[in-house]
């Protein structure tokens, strides 16, 4: 991939971010009610103080000025202060982010191991009972409500057997949330991997490898796998979106700290600066990760041109 193509991808990020940020800004202006009253949450206030608060929030200025200042603040990572804790939103998110990252990594590892295994097994022996079994398992993974499976896991392995703690933020306490998050991911990954393997197994070079007299495992392990993992891996970006969405639910079930929990609580408490900050930051992260993967893929695989 040429420098020009890479620059093109990077510049393409700007309109995307502009559209998503504009949508969030617009959505937040549609919230009924005076933001100052929402911020005060029922505390009585004098008219003078009210005007001061309005000026501080910037809601007394024309909408276009508010919009421009929102964009420039967001670009600098400034989303104002939480209505509740009065702390800067960015600081709140930064404090919660490591927990979500741990959970997402844990869920990703579980999802990848389980999903790839199911997909490879199904893809190597397609259209038989093995395939049906693996794909039904994948569908179960996609259909299981992750909050339900999370509660069942807690009930059996934490409360019942006592193998892992129910609460906490240590490694032990990460196991069940990772499984619960990973199961959903595994379902989709298994399907993708299966299709990729079936496609690769039909290629000429696989037939050549077989004709050379290589064992089935060597063909799969050395030749098929390498090419089959690329399509599912390019969908890592989509996996990120699923992980973030899953984290919202998993953090709630397991009462873990994290930005998902932060977002849900902020919606329930009408803490709009926090809602705005979390939505903008997760979406921006998603866009940037996808571009990074796109570029990396272009560098690794010369067939992808710019």
């Amino acid at each position, binding site marked *: 991939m040429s420098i020009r193509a890479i620059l093109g991808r990077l510049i393409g990020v700007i*309109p995307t971010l502009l559209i*998503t940020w504009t949508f969030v800004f617009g959505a937040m202006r549609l*919230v009924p009610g005076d933001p100052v009253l929402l911020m005060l949450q029922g505390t009585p206030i004098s008219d003078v103080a009210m005007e001061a608060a309005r000026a501080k929030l910037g809601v007394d200025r024309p909408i276009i000025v508010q919009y421009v200042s929102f964009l420039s603040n967001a670009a600098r990572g400034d989303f104002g202060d939480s209505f509740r804790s009065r702390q800067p939103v960015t600081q709140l998110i930064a404090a919660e982010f490591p927990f979500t990252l741990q959970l997402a990594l844990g869920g990703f590892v579980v999802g990848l191991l389980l999903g790839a295994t199911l997909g490879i097994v199904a893809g190597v022996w397609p259209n038989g009972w093995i395939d049906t079994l693996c794909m039904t398992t994948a569908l179960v993974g996609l259909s299981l409500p992750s*909050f*339900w499976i999370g509660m069942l896991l807690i009930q059996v392995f934490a409360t019942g057997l006592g193998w892992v703690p129910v609460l906490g933020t240590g490694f032990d306490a990460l196991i069940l949330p990772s499984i619960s998050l990973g199961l959903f991911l595994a379902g989709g990954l298994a399907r993708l991997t299966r299709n990729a393997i079936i496609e690769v197994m039909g290629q000429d070079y696989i037939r050549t490898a077989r004709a050379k007299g290589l064992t089935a495992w060597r063909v799969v392990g050395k030749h098929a796998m390498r090419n089959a993992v690329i399509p599912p891996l390019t969908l890592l970006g989509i996996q990120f979106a699923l992980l973030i969405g899953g984290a919202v639910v998993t953090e709630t079930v397991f009462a873990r700290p994290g930005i998902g929990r932060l977002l849900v609580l902020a919606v329930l408490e009408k803490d*709009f600066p926090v809602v705005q900050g979390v939505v903008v930051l997760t979406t921006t992260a998603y866009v940037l990760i996808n571009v990074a993967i796109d570029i990396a893929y272009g560098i690794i695989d010369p067939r992808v041109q710019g």
Partner: protein
Amino acid sequence: MNAANLTRRPWFVSRLLGAPGAVAGAVVIVVILGLAVLAPYLAPYDWNATSQCRRLAPMTAEHWFGCDLFGRDIFSRVIYGARFSLAMGLSTVAISLLFGSLLGIVIAYAGGWTDRIGARVIDAMLCFPSIILAILIVAVLGVGLLNAALAVGISGIPRFARITRAAALPLVARDFVEAARSVGAGHGRIVLRHLLPNLAPILIVIATLDLGGAVLFTATLSFLGLGAQPPTPEWGAMLDAGREYVRYAPWTMIFPGLALFLTVMAVNLVGDRLSLILDPRQRDRS
């Protein structure tokens, strides 16, 4: 496979019922629909009547699924919950399908700058992780069952619009569109009478594939406290309410969750089979 076969209904039904999974799924869906319609006759107790039994009482012959914190019969509540799951799933998919497909067709038909800008906006909107977008919309609309359904429906619009646009683009260039225009058909007529029917199979496929996820998604919002509120007997909300007492009374969460899982699984099994039959690219593989 020839074209005449496609229009014969028994062929279609027999293909759909040819897979044991799809049959099981169809049976479960019929049962869920039956429960939803006949809930007042099938439920042994009032779904909202408290003190029907001891608080958090376990499963007995009188109360098959046990009782919740307020002494309500969980079996009756699970039956009434069937009214929400499929209805919420169908209405959210209907919102995504209606607005998404119209948007996709219109920008593909309009072409030029409209299409370029429209496609760009759709792609950008797809950058919101869908649950984050739905939560943002709930934040704006306010918490509640209908708002959650609306949010899930709206968050699906970009996905439907992108697929519809991609499928409509090659059609717009075809001769029959030009022919319709030359005999004086208006834009509205071309979009609704000529383009839409040609897109129907793919729209049905994506709608059915989306349905399971939509059921799960709305229940998830209720579980998070953003959708159905107590005492509504919605499965996600019931799971949320039972969360605090799980260790003393696991039945408060086992049965609503099982009902939700079976419904989503059934819809997914039928949806998968349906997409295999309707999607011409996949037809040979089955």
